[in-house]
């Protein structure tokens, strides 16, 4: 479980849930917290307002590799997250290999065209 702040992935560590009364409706609220500081801040606000809440810890063991990665969209991030770390690493290595080969080809082309040994 994670969220995107702009392009950056942040793992969800806690979920704080409470109820708000709005007019004649009671609505379920939740805050997905990315740190203990974040969770404490929410809990303090609710405590000051006298609103009961519950806090759930989210197990993120094994997901730390995902923290801080950047993607263009949540959907893209979710696809990578669901594929898992190994697939991500393989894809990343493949991408790096492809990039290196492309760079080597560019250098060879420049050497041939300029007559300079690289």
């Amino acid at each position: 479980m994670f969220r995107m702040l702009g392009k950056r992935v942040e793992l969800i560590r806690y979920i704080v849930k409470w109820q708000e009364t709005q007019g004649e409706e009671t609505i379920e609220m939740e805050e997905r917290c990315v740190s203990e500081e974040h969770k404490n801040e929410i809990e303090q606000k609710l405590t000051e307002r006298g609103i009961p809440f519950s806090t759930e810890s989210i197990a993120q063991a094994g997901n730390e590799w995902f923290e801080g990665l950047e993607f263009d969209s949540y959907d893209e991030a979710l696809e990578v997250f669901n594929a898992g770390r190994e697939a991500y690493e393989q894809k990343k290595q493949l991408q790096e290999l492809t990039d290196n080969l492309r760079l080597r080809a560019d250098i060879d082309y420049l050497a041939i065209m300029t007559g300079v040994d690289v």
Partner: protein
Amino acid sequence: MQPMYHGIVNSPVTELADEIDADATTIEVVDGSKLPNAPNIATIGTGEDAETILYEQKTGNILSDVTRGFQGTAKAWPAGTKVSRMFTEYDHASFRQNIQELNTTLSDHTGNPVIHPRVFQQDTPPDNPQDGDLWINTSDDVYQGTVFAQLQQEIAAHKAEIATSTQLGHVKVGQNLAIDPDGTLHAQASGGKKVARFVIGTSTAGWTENDVDYLCDGVDDQEEINAAIQALPASGGEIVILDGTYNIGARIDVNKNSVTIRGNGSATVLKRMWNSGSNEGVITLNSVSNCKIENLQIDGNRSAYTSTNNCGIYLFSSDNNTITGNTFNNNSRGIYLTDSHNNTITGNTCNYNNFGIYLYLSDNNTITGNTFNDNDNASGIYLANSDNNTITGNTCNNNDTGITLSSSDNNTVTGNTCNNISFGIYLYASDNSTITGNICNKNGYGIYLIDSNNNTITGNTCNNNSEGITLFSSNNHTITGNTCIRGTGQPSDYTSSQYTIHLSGSGNSYNLISSNNCMGKDVAIDGGPGNTSVNNKYN
């Protein structure tokens, strides 16, 4: 009436064809065309000795059935004496006499004689008073001979008011007055149509029976007001409530169409003095249309009467009405509409209520330019199951929530100011609305949508909120061109739980968030498929 005879242009002259004696009643002239048709008069001779005759017949050059010496002395005249239709003393005398007679006997179009009041300013009453006579004694007390005189007195009073005020309880400056044959005094509408109108005052403010049609006494004042409404014709009319505080012990029931109730702004106070067992207003419009409630102050007296059914004004199944320029303070609901459509609510102030204005099952209403402040524990404007309403240019500050749309679709919320405690604008299960150009600063949440779809959120300013714009379980929104910043827009201006735009929870999908000013913190998306965040400025 004296007979009056035609003249003839330039008074042409003919002559006697033959001599005549003083007794002749048939007279021949040389050219009869020089004289007007009979009956008419003609003058024989000139100067001080002339004789005016009256002829009943004229055939060619022959005048017959002649009255001799009609004016002047009948006498013998020789042939060739000049004869003409001269302007005579008789003409002038008949004009005067007839005009004077008309002046005293003329009838109006209804057949009633026109009365010319005489005004007597003296110590003692005039002898033999006539219809319309006014007697003003040395103390300036005015007495009248008949009801006509009383009406004259009322008109004088109205004129005095018109001269001293730009807008009065009775009539506006420039408004015409009319008197019906039955003595009823009316204000005239611009088209000349008469408007039935009753004036209400209260003795507690110093009004007397001479000032008003219905005089309240400070207890159950709704009785006089309701009596005035019932006395209006079925086609409606106006109720004018003069300055003063009116204690209302049961609802003022507007139960006929086209009724206007008008006060004098904050000087006319209708104060609630009872608890309602079901939804009721101090003024209740029940299944009526084209009514207008304006310039009244309705005090819900919530410190003493706390029922949640207490409304300032309640419209039930009432369409096409106008509520304008009123103050509805200290009610459970300042303005409450149920099953009421196409109404215009403009320029009112609703403070210190539970809800400022509440619409339930009410569509196509316009709520513009009102003030809804300090409505505790609830909303300034609250729509429940109400669609296609326009909410524009209202001020909703220091409420729990500024504007709430609950299960209400296709509404337009534009140009409002909502600086409140919890939510600026709150949508719950409300779809296809447009939220544009509003200012929602210093709330917990500037704009908050939950379980809502297909709304357009553009060009709003949501600064210094804990969260500028927040979506929860909401789909297919367009959120563009909004400004949502805290402080000076530095990352340090935000704590972990403060956001510019936040898609909260994993239940939001297919929302487009673009071209917003989110300085200091980029858009946060907790989850959900198909959300797009592009071109937002955050650093």
